[in-house]
């Protein structure tokens, strides 16, 4: 990074890693941090010290990321960790997710906010069942873009034919999961040696594609929500109690006596003054009179921006309401068909009474029948289970106490997603996806 680069505007890419244990994920992440000079001298020293303590002769880059006591003791990653690095053009937030089967729930967690996922395979083993499982989860969560990093190519003597075989098998897999070819990039790398991570390798002269870092820097960051209809859950109603309360020097604000702003983060689409919107679930129709932030009024606000929306009519839109484009309104329903990623030790049984958090609304829910369960190993739907256990992905029908405005997850990631919560403990039990985002996947024989 140079002193001049930081004055220009840079974009932010949120991405996740996934891969089996021992595919070298932590080493790859350590390599990315190291080669982008995001690791500072004291962190390197700490790693060198710890590596010597473990009797190693070279610094173990994976120690840069495995931070908890239990992780260092067992040499594994037990929880999602977030890492940060940057280049002159882009900043990166990396959700580094563990590869152990029992922590698949963390892949779901990392994937829920990712615009891209880097899936690792060991070049010696190629596509294995864990690769299929992770690719299925990434497809289910609608991560827009995938990278397959074929790691440890130094251990197969940079064998071009073998790498081409892995690429072919992986592309077949991602096509069957509904990824288009331009959403998938395959990159042969060696995290240990540094081949094609930040620097082009002299060992793969036949490879003409980008390095991993070049790809991360240049891939478009607009998710599938970019051209989706406008949605914004109302988080909070801003009502200054009197005009004198405002310390904003903002001249565009008139008399605050009647100010009533609906605060929220645009979930999808774009909102502009003059747009017709519907306030759900009640269905009142009105017009947006102003879109603003603390810095003043805006001509338009797109997905991801936290704004305050003012409406032309004095209607009730409390926390929990959803503002939606009047031209494209989500379904308001109390019967929801959904796909669940079950994240908790406690299994899900039909008839369970739980809480459901959707947008800014939390309501009661009764679980109906369980439908088919995803066999993540073979990536096909299997017969309905009696219960859903930790790391299971299954279809389910839900009845909610208050009708909710929902989109299918495949269409709008934010308003199609929800949490299931355990009332007595408050624990998050499941990631819920409205509809069947893996509709393309066939049922098992």
């Amino acid at each position, binding site marked *: 990074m140079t002193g001049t680069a930081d004055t220009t505007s840079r974009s932010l890419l949120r991405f996740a890693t996934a891969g089996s244990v021992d595919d070298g994920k932590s080493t790859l992440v350590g390599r990315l941090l190291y080669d982008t000079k995001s690791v500072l001298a004291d962190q390197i020293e700490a790693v060198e010290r710890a590596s010597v303590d473990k009797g190693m002769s070279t610094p173990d880059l994976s120690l840069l990321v495995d931070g908890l006591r239990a992780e260092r003791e067992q040499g594994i990653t037990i929880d999602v960790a977030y890492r940060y690095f940057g280049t002159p053009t882009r900043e990166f937030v990396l959700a580094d997710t563990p590869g152990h089967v029992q922590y698949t729930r963390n892949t779901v967690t990392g994937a829920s906010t990712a615009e891209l996922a880097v899936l690792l395979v060991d070049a010696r083993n190629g596509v294995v069942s864990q690769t299929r499982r992770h690719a299925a989860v990434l497809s289910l969560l609608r991560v827009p873009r995938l990278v397959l990093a074929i790691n440890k190519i130094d251990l197969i003597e940079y064998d071009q034919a073998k790498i081409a075989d892995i690429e072919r098998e992986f592309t077949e897999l991602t096509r069957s999961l509904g990824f288009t070819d331009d959403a998938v990039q395959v990159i042969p790398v060696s995290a240990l040696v540094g081949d094609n991570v930040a620097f082009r390798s002299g060992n793969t002269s036949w490879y003409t594609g980008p390095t991993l870092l070049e790809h991360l820097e240049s891939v478009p960051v607009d998710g599938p929500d970019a051209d989706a209809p406008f949605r914004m859950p109302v988080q909070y109603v801003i009502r200054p109690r009197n005009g004198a309360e405002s310390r904003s020097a903002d001249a565009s604000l008139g008399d605050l006596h009647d100010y009533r702003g609906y605060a929220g983060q645009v979930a999808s689409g774009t909102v502009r003054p003059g747009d017709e919107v519907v306030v759900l679930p009640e269905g009142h129709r009105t017009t947006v009179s102003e879109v603003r932030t603390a810095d003043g009024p805006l001509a338009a606000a797109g997905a991801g*921006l936290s704004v305050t929306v003012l409406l032309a009519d004095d209607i009730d839109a409390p926390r929990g309401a959803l503002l939606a484009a009047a031209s494209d309104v989500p379904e308001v329903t109390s019967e929801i068909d959904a796909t669940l990623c079950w994240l908790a030790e406690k299994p899900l049984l039909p008839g369970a009474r739980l809480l459901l958090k959707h947008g*800014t609304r939390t309501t009661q829910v009764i679980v109906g029948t369980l439908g088919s369960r995803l066999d993540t190993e073979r990536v096909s739907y299997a017969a309905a289970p009696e219960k859903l256990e930790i790391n299971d992905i299954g279809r389910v029908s839900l009845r909610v106490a208050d009708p909710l405005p929902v989109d299918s997850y495949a269409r709008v990631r934010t308003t199609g997603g929800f949490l299931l919560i355990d009332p007595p403990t408050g624990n998050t039990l499941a990631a819920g996806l409205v509809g069947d985002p893996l509709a393309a996947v066939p049922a098992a024989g």
Partner: protein
Amino acid sequence: MTTVEETPVTAAVTTPALDALDALESEAIHVFREVAGEFDRPVILFSGGKDSTLLVHLAIKAFAPATVPFGLLHVDTGHNYPEVIEFRDRIAAQYGLRLEVARVEDYLADGRLVERADGTRNPLQTQPLLDAIAEHRFDAVFGGGRRDEERARAKERIMSLRDAFGRWDPRKQRPELWNLYNGRHAAGEHVRVFPISNWTELDVWRYIRREGIELPSIYYAHEREVFQRDGMWLAEGPWGGARDGEQLERRSIRYRTVGDGSCTGAVESTATTLDEVIAEVTASRLTERGATRADDRLSEAAMEDRKKEGYF
């Protein structure tokens, strides 16, 4: 920059991606509003340091033009720089925010806590903090912690449940999915909230420059009497000073973090403006904690261990 060439109009019309600082700001504002909507008694931990000053700034933007619906809490070790305490009180007054102060010195005075042999008071903050949370029945406590600070913090959720003893259990964290935060807690438990989890030290400085946020003067280069210990420049104060063999010298220094004076070191610097500070942070080969926080060097897992006890 070279001149931008005319690009052909493509069919797909997409919203331009948010600038990195706008995206981080929006995420933090979203978190503030979620807490305002779901909790009864939130409070912002405010020390007058750059991260907590950033929190106050973001909170003001989240609720503008109304005032921030939370107060401030400072756990004062009694080892703070006067410039920082003056700044703390002035900012609270300027924005009309109620400020509670929990004083470690009150605990030392009546014997509930005892001064440590090494003189540092950072670990002594935990009890006054937890007592203040219990006394005021705070159910959400905002902190300026960032995941880039330390490896254990890299694992911390944006909303992190603490039990009745204030403890953090890294193995029992709730998964955080999309931007849906689950803040449910039982009576007596509370949630620590970290709206700037995803910011780096450079993001903080760039944002401070962009927004013109005022900071205590100790963040900028000034001359001060300091002595060197374990490679850090420490100042003399009520917490003690140079020991045998340690030489007091007048140096041009600045602070990268604000903490207990006994264990927070300064770095040599001539950076008196935001641009100079940013250039210096960009070029630095040391993390802010590695450079200036003695308490994080105590053991491999010092931060993790303290967090399990209820520290931030």
